[in-house]
């Protein structure tokens, strides 16, 4: 008797669990349906939209965007949900699993995460919405083409950051060396870094700095436009690892192992005032301006920007891009209203609001670039303003079915090579074999 009750209970529970997990089979396939007419934002019923973001307190453009939108749409209230920055995409994916989340608009932080969410059917295809709203995606300069999956677009970009070279003018002035130019080859860059390095104990100055991210070193390799980071053959990374490891050995840059174990943030490294050049994304510009202005960074006051160094024979201004985009979740109960808000942020109107805070929006018109370079606190020299012009931009991680698995493999290899636990050859061999297995 007892045993029978137990067994029955177990099965009932299991069945309900299974049913709960697979009840969205039908729901997800309907994702591509055209938006129903008579969108819910046209009525005056009050709607609250939930927008997933990270770092509410240190991001300056969320509130102005919301304020502007809410002023024009009295019935809509936007509520931000901060999922934290460290594991943002993982947390978001967990939130959206099961299609019963209450998040309407999801901010997409990186491409592997985007591909995962699309694979999981957690995002609404936007093609029909875009068509209905008559949005011209050519204003994004081709970025949207790079995030199309199965002929469908699931997100629209609102920020498009790219990598530049930040430099500390004081160090160059003190060493009597010319500032980095917008047209440097990797050799010239290496030479310059060595010139401004100071290895005297106690007064150490580093010529360059690479943050512990894989992108900071590995992606030098894709800037010639010939190689792909998801291609399966990584032999092309060899010269760049050699360059960086030699710099590390000669104490031109800080030791990767030390940076990793001390979890030193790149902003902290640059703010200490002993790093001459640092490659980093343009998202660092507003932080730098703000913290120097507020007096938090006391060891650095004059800085500049230069274009990324380039390989021999490649047009200067080729760089890596990271896009931050917005998507409507399939779980949303107010898809129309959510898209309306998304449309506002990703429009040229939203771009203006974003640019006014020093952040680079996805719609990068001349006016936008100028509004950033004329901001108070932005370096006044011409070179820095010009550094914001890009020639070719390559996504840090292109859309790929296996992008998150590839990412894990590449990170492991990068960590091994940079900490000296594997030779460059061993690391590349590991990437070739392991990614090769995935691509089969």
């Amino acid at each position, binding site marked *: *008797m007892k045993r029978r009750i137990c067994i029955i209970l177990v099965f009932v529970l299991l069945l309900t669990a299974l049913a709960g997990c697979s009840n969205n089979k039908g729901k997800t396939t309907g994702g591509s349906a055209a938006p129903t007419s008579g969108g819910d934002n046209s009525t005056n019923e009050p709607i609250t939209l939930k927008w997933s973001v990270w770092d509410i307190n240190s991001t300056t453009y969320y509130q102005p965007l919301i304020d502007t939108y809410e002023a024009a749409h009295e019935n809509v209230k936007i509520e931000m949900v901060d999922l934290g920055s460290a594991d943002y995409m993982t947390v978001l994916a*967990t939130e959206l699993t099961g299609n019963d989340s209450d998040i309407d608009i999801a901010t997409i932080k990186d491409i592997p995460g985007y591909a995962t969410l699309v694979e*999981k059917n957690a995002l609404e295809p936007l093609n029909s919405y875009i068509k209905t709203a008559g949005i011209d995606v050519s204003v994004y300069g081709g970025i949207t083409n790079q995030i199309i999956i199965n002929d469908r677009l699931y997100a629209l970009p609102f920020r498009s950051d790219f990598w530049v070279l930040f430099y500390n003018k004081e160090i160059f002035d003190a060493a009597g060396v010319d500032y980095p130019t917008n047209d440097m080859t990797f050799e010239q860059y290496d030479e310059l870094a060595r010139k401004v390095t100071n290895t005297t104990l106690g007064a150490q100055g580093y010529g360059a700095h690479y943050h512990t991210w894989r992108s900071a070193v590995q992606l030098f390799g894709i800037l010639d436009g010939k190689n792909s980071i998801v291609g399966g053959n990584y032999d092309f990374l060899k010269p760049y690892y050699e360059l960086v490891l030699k710099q590390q050995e000669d104490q031109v840059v800080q030791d990767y*192992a030390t940076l990793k174990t001390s979890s030193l943030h790149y902003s902290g490294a640059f703010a200490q005032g002993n790093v001459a050049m640092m490659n980093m994304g343009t998202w660092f510009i507003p932080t730098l301006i703000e913290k120097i202005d507020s007096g938090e960074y006391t060891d650095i006051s004059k800085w500049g920007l230069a274009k990324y160094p380039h390989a021999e024979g490649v047009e200067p201004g080729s760089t890596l891009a990271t896009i931050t985009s917005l998507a409507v979740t399939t779980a949303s109960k107010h898809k129309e209203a959510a898209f309306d808000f998304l449309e506002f942020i990703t429009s040229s109107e939203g771009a203006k609001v974003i640019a006014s805070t020093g952040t680079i929006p996805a719609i990068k018109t001349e006016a936008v670039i100028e509004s950033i370079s004329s901001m108070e606190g932005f370096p006044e020299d011409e070179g820095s303003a010009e550094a914001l012009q890009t020639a070719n931009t390559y996504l840090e991680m292109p859309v790929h079915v296996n992008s*998150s698995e590839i990412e894990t493999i590449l990170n492991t290899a990068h960590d091994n090579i940079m*900490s000296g636990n594997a030779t460059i050859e061993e690391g590349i061999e590991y990437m070739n074999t392991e990614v090769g297995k995935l691509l089969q």
Partner: protein
Amino acid sequence: MENKNKESKIRQLTDKQKTELAELEATLIGLIDCVQTISVSKEKEKVLSNIAKTQKKIKHIKLGGILSKETKRNLVAYSFIAPNFIGFMVFTLGPIMFAFLLSFMKWDGNNAMDFVGINNFLRLTDDVRFKAAFVNTVVYSLATVPLTLLFALGLAIILNQKVKFRNVFRTASFFPYVASLVAVAAVWNMLFSPANGPVNMLLANLGVAVKNLPKWAADKHFAMLTVILFSVWKSMGYYMVIYLAGLQGISAEMYEAASLDGANSWQKFKSITWPMLQPTTFFVVVILTINCFKVYDQIYMITQGGPGTSTLVLVYHIYDTAFKSWDLGYASAISVVLFLLVLIVTLVQFKGEKKYANS
């Protein structure tokens, strides 16, 4: 009063029920007569159970209730264990069984599941990250369990004696266990920083060449050691308390008797303390081993599984596979392997229980 109730219930019976009752009573009498004549035990049992059933039916019609007294009593008993049992089912047993099922599926959490048979388990043989994680987990456990045991027991023995500031020392050794893992891991990383950490400075002052200084958490030969040392330091206080309790349960008379016989400290430890502590040691080893196989947080805070895969452990790999790659089926397959690993270790230990814990 009760009789009256019964009476009234019988009076309310319909004619149909009355005839049924009469019929049943007749069968009952027949059965009772029958049972006295049967000698084959199997047949007898059958008839006896038939009698019981008929009696139940009669009772049911007479009393009119849906549930018999016994069932009612059982239900009350079940309702007492229900809160705990339901919680256990929903949050432990259900997910465990679900994970077993999942290990034969391909699933990303949203789309429909696909049955893939034992493919997930076949994939394990070709997964270098899994192999590394498996070896690392075993190495970690093999090193951490005896080391923690040794330090916890040593501390307990020292702090069980009448030393000055005994309570201060006891508190100090227990402190790492209650301190926030995130905070102490950050401090640990600072202490073991390759370039300017106090540990390496000490080593340099002791004459180790700067070139040969270990890079600790960033060195593939030392990363695991760094994590193990951290784990031992963090958890030894807890097991020390358990050992202290064990030590205080040993009668002082035994030591007195041993002293009279001229035993030295080592002899006393070997012949009294260690044997008397065996139940405690058994408990500590079981709990510690299971905890070691589950290690995740220390690794996440100190090395993130790096450099390369040198500190990647099974739980970390499961997390990556499940929530970074959303390969829930494969992650479940790895969990099943981890489950079997812990199961085997625990079974072996429980075999030892008969030998040690009750001696």
